[in-house]
């Protein structure tokens, strides 16, 4: 229960490795522990709600399942919320921030989208409270932007603090940095799959996490092919030429090579990344939806 006791879970990895699936599975796993969960998707497209069979949420926090809420964090809306917190009056906000030219100008502020998105996450994790004054969420699960952007996303507070030394932004960046680096509060997870490029990116990402001294979570190896055929069986099957074994030969060859890759990259990841690893089997589901996510939730929950 080392990592699941933390409140903020940041799910990172290359595009297409299944970050949203792992995010959805972590949400279900936390739900099973009777936690009140908020999913924050800081991605181009919202995915978690539909994976769990619920309609998309958009920029408002909406309930998508028993004790699971979700929100799609988008820069434009996050910007408005953040700016309104600073200037407090909507009239001033409209006059200044909705101004077309100001908008151009604000585009030049480095990392502004990341700042406001992270600011929103910070508010949900650290500030938001229930009626009894306790943190409103037991678990906030953040589906982070894909690797390249993911690293710059996590680096934002540091980047800004290097550029600016005074003003309200500095105070906010320090708060965000404190949240991101607190090992009692936050865990950064890495998702990858057993292929060359996703594994390289996972290694890079993990190096960046270590270098930034961010609290480490788990490594999820998705699309993992279990060892199903022995070398002997594969060799013998490959040497047959019976027509009746056509489908079997193709299936065994495909699976066999994929199981080799899985074993190879699993070993490499264990050598190069010092994180506890969870293997997520490749699921041959007719529709990749709720049922598949439930199965993965069981696996990630078991090792929490």
């Amino acid at each position, binding site marked *: 229960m080392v990592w699941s006791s933390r409140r903020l879970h940041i799910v990172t990895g*290359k*595009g*297409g*490795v299944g970050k*949203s699936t792992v995010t959805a599975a972590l949400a279900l796993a936390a739900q099973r522990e009777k936690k009140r969960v908020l999913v924050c998707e800081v991605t*181009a*497209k919202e995915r978690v709600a539909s994976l769990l069979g619920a309609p998309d949420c958009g920029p408002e926090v909406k309930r998508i399942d028993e004790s699971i809420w979700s929100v799609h964090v988008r820069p434009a809306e996050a910007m408005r919320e953040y700016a309104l917190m*600073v*200037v407090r009056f909507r009239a*001033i906000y409209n*006059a200044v921030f909705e101004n077309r*030219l*100001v908008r*151009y*100008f*604000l*585009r*030049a*502020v*480095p*990392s502004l*989208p990341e700042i406001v998105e992270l600011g929103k996450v910070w508010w949900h994790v650290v500030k938001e409270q229930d009626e009894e004054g306790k943190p409103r969420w037991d678990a906030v699960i953040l589906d982070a932007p*894909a690797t*390249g952007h993911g690293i710059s996303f996590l680096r934002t507070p540091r980047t800004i603090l290097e*550029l*600016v030394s*005074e*003003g*309200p*932004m*500095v105070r906010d960046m320090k708060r965000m940095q404190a949240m991101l680096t607190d090992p009692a509060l936050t865990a950064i997870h890495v998702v990858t799959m057993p292929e*060359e*490029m996703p594994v*390289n990116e996972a290694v*890079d990402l993990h190096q960046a996490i270590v270098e930034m001294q961010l609290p480490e979570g788990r490594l999820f190896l998705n699309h993992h092919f279990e060892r*199903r*055929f*022995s070398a002997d*069986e594969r060799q*013998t099957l490959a040497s*047959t030429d*019976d*027509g*009746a*074994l*056509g*489908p*079997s030969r*193709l*299936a*065994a060859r*495909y*699976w*066999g*090579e994929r199981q080799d890759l899985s074993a190879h990259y699993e070993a490499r990841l264990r050598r190069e990344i010092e994180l506890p690893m969870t293997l997520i089997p490749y699921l*041959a*589901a*007719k*529709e*990749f939806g709720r049922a598949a996510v439930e199965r993965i939730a069981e696996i990630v929950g078991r090792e929490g």
Partner: protein
Amino acid sequence: MLGEVLESRRVVVCVGSGGVGKTTVSAALALRAAMNGRKALVLTIDPARRLANSLGLPTLGNVETRIGEERFAAAGLKPSGELWAMTLDLRRTWDDLIERYAPSAERRETILHNRLYQALSTGLAGSLEYMAMEKVYELERAGGYDLVVLDTPPTAHALDFLDAPNRLLDLFSHDAARWLLGGALGAGRVGLSLVHLGSSYILKTLARFTGVELLQSLAEFFVAFQGMYDGFHERAKATKALLSGEKSAFVLVTSPNPLTVDEAVFFAHELKRSEIHVAAGIVNRVHENPLWQPGATDAPDIARALAHERVPNDGRPFLSERLETTVTELSVLAQRDEREIERFHEATGGAFALHVVPRLARDVHDLAGLWQVLEAMHEHGGG
């Protein structure tokens, strides 16, 4: 269609969402052109090591690197053209551009030493896209290559890529900066003080948000950028004309994953709306269906066939049962993929030919693998 595109166009732009194997496909397309006698360059703007991986190179700088004959020989290939590759170094391309357009050495130094410049040049939204297009334009104009294949960064919207120059130019336009910075800008002062900023209600409010310091650096940056706008503007216009013109072709890459197909459909509509013609679609990593081959598919039949071939039916579960499971699972995946390809085809109204790349058993990250991708690529369903 794809063959004709690779033979006759000067620029091929591969667009698509992240994680679909766009970099691999881009490299494979350049390889095909090189095999057919063209001098082809593949340009990636991905900050990761993907392209270097797929060409079996340890590193790729901001320099054009030729893929050596020995690599081709090792993969059993004999190209009649040349294959070159490069990864865009964002910072360096920006620096080059500043060097080119700065009206004076002093102005150039001011920009290069601006505290915000580094963050701006690598962090500004649209910056990466802009510089990639800039580089493609430069390479095409220099005429050193018959074909440049551009692997674009994964963006949420296909048009983010095309609009990047405009958005960036808006930022640097006289009007925006002059209006915001008022008199300070008109006077051409570089060392802007708080007094100048403080005169505007809007700037005061912004300063509460960003802090005065950041705003000052920004203002300094904008002031320094004055006079460079026209150069940028001309260049961006020419680049856009090149990419939407006859010399260029767009290829839309996707995987058969339902979520990425949704995105690809969305991309296709966006491109159409801005009157950009998609020359071909490529669906990458499609599962092959074992049921396309005649033969046994359930455990008892497989067991009989194994006995006939004297293959021991051992293990737990028995080999025949494991084979049945694997055949069934793979065919489920293949059917799922087939449905998605059909859906993609229908949603785009058959506007462009779809090419399918089977999901290869091995992992693609060298020339031999890229060649295997090309060999396995075929047009979808003949229509």
